[in-house]
């Protein structure tokens, strides 16, 4: 039986995907619901649309941190 689910398709590079998966694991370890619904391939995830806003904020914070760190080295 064909299954159809509503969600958000996230396309990103593998490095960002790793960060997203780490965030998902942390949520699970904290006893919260996972937001990754399906791991599609190395650059695509299917995620819970309710968590998109939260995820974008967390990613912005993390990526910004990394940019600063990069600047420090350079």
């Amino acid at each position, binding site marked *: *039986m*064909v*299954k*159809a*689910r*509503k*969600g*958000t*398709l*996230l*396309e*990103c*590079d593998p*490095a*960002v995907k790793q960060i997203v998966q780490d965030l998902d694991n942390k949520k699970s370890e904290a006893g919260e619901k996972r937001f990754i*619904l*399906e791991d*599609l*391939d190395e650059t*695509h995830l*299917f995620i819970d*649309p309710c968590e*998109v806003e939260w995820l*974008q904020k967390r*990613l*912005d914070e993390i*990526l*910004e941190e*990394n*940019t600063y760190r*990069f*600047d420090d080295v350079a």
Partner: protein
Amino acid sequence: VIDQIRLWEMERNRLRLSGAWLYSDFTDLNEFTQIVNYAEPLGAVLWKNEKRRTLAVTEEGHENVKSFRKRAAAARAGGAGR
């Protein structure tokens, strides 16, 4: 400063989000292929993987795919009845 902005932009562009419907668990590869062949010219396919028989359809395309599937199912039922 321009380099910094460019770097920041690059980071921001590292992800793309789209509202979608994920179709999976096709028992029939033909059915999967038919939907892909129907939806792709409409620009409704965001992602697909034939091996996994899974495809992501745009929110706009979902209604089209839904009625296409209904028509296909009716045609199959009609064919079997004959």
